[in-house]
């Protein structure tokens, strides 16, 4: 146990560096992914048949192929065409697009759950379609999507570990580096797993708090 604690203390600084990158990757990708998801979902729900069709094909393409394959295409597939991106940039782009597509589908569901009567009412007081979306639909849809969004965040936080395959210096990369020097694979990865768990639990609570904070009075669920 003392060994384990010593190992924990020794590897902690390097792992924390990696954790910083992991969280940075996750937070930036989820924010950019949300923006992308909003545009994709609005285009899919309210766009013309062509716009909606193109978006649907794009989303299915991204959701239907492995994230790892997408990262490899960006990292190894583009350089022959003269586009050479650093590992971190590839990870950011890959995660953002991937998350954006998943979030688009969550959002589409919550956008469509806002009653059509409210949209008609918005139009009837002279709002344009865009104003109705901006002031009536989105504020409700974004609230409703928080639970799925929490899920997406947790998923993405752990999926950023895939970035270690292309060498982005996130937590898994650091763990592999440490373990390859001291051969304590089991213990090092156990430590990493525990750190992920703590972070996930922290963010889960944070989003639960947020969900509670923005809930609409009268819509409380019955316990």
């Amino acid at each position, binding site marked *: 146990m003392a060994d384990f604690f010593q190992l924990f203390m020794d590897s902690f600084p390097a792992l924390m560096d990696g954790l910083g990158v992991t969280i940075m990757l996750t937070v930036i990708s989820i924010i950019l992914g949300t923006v992308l998801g909003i545009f994709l979902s609005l285009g899919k729900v309210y766009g013309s048949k062509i716009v909606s069709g193109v978006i649907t094909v794009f989303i299915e393409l991204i959701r239907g192929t492995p994230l790892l394959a997408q990262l490899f295409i960006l990292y190894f597939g583009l350089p022959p065409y003269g586009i050479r991106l650093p590992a971190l940039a590839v990870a950011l782009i890959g995660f953002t697009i991937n998350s954006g597509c998943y979030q688009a589908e969550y959002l589409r569901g919550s956008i469509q759950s806002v*009653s059509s009567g*409210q949209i008609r009412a918005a*139009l*009837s*007081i*002279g709002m*344009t379609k865009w104003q109705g979306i901006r002031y*009536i639909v989105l504020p409700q849809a974004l*609230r409703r999507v928080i639970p799925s969004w929490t899920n997406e965040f947790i998923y993405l936080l752990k999926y950023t570990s895939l970035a270690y395959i292309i060498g982005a210096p996130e937590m898994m990369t650091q763990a592999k580096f440490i373990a390859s020097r001291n051969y304590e694979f089991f213990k090092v990865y156990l430590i990493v797993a525990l750190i992920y768990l703590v972070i996930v639990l922290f963010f889960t609570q944070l989003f639960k708090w947020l969900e509670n904070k923005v809930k609409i009075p009268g*819509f409380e669920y019955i316990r």
Partner: protein
Amino acid sequence: MSKKEILRIVDLHKSFGDNEVLKGISLSLKQGETKVVIGTSGTGKSTMLNNINMLIPPDKGHIYLEDVDVTTTHDISRIRQQIGFVFQDFGLFDHLTAKGNIMIGLTKVKKMKKSEAEELAMFELERVGLQDFADSYPAQLSGGQKQRVGIARALAMQPKLILFDEPTSALDPELIGEVLTVMRDLAREGMTMLIVTHEMGFAKSVSDEIIFMENGKIVEQGPPEQLFNNPREERTKEFLFKLNELYGEGGA
């Protein structure tokens, strides 16, 4: 003195697929007039109201709001600001308080200052007797209260006319009265209103004219005394007879 014409509908047609819902509707509404449209379900009453502010565009015909042809205008949002609409299912914005529901049109559509919008919202809430519920959310209100907020929201835009699409049909019987009272007050204050309703007692006592529609056409229109007591058309007689059977003499 002849009053100014607010609304004129000329030969309105609308089909949904093969189903011709409106087969040439024409009517007009002068300033301060209240007209009530009656008729069985599925005769196009609701479609006609939705045509007027282009929530459902008609296939053929013209709708004039004063001098503007609503069917060909390039700025329908501007027209809609001047036509209040009260929905059967209220159409309140769930994420906004009663006051917020009224203010959002004022601040976002009319670009009114927040403080002015709030003042006007409170004034309209008071008008429908809901000043104490300004900070309640729709889900915390009863059906009757929701509909009164809906009416206050329409009023705050200071429309030239208000369309009511079965405003009490989704309400429990004991809540209908409070909504009808508000509407009766509006009629008395000289608001121009076109109302689709099944509340015959209300129609009789409030309207300047009753319009009886059936199968996408206006069968008969006239002052309530004449239409209810001396209907000219056989179809009107049958409809009123059925109503009496259902609700007893005098209607519901």
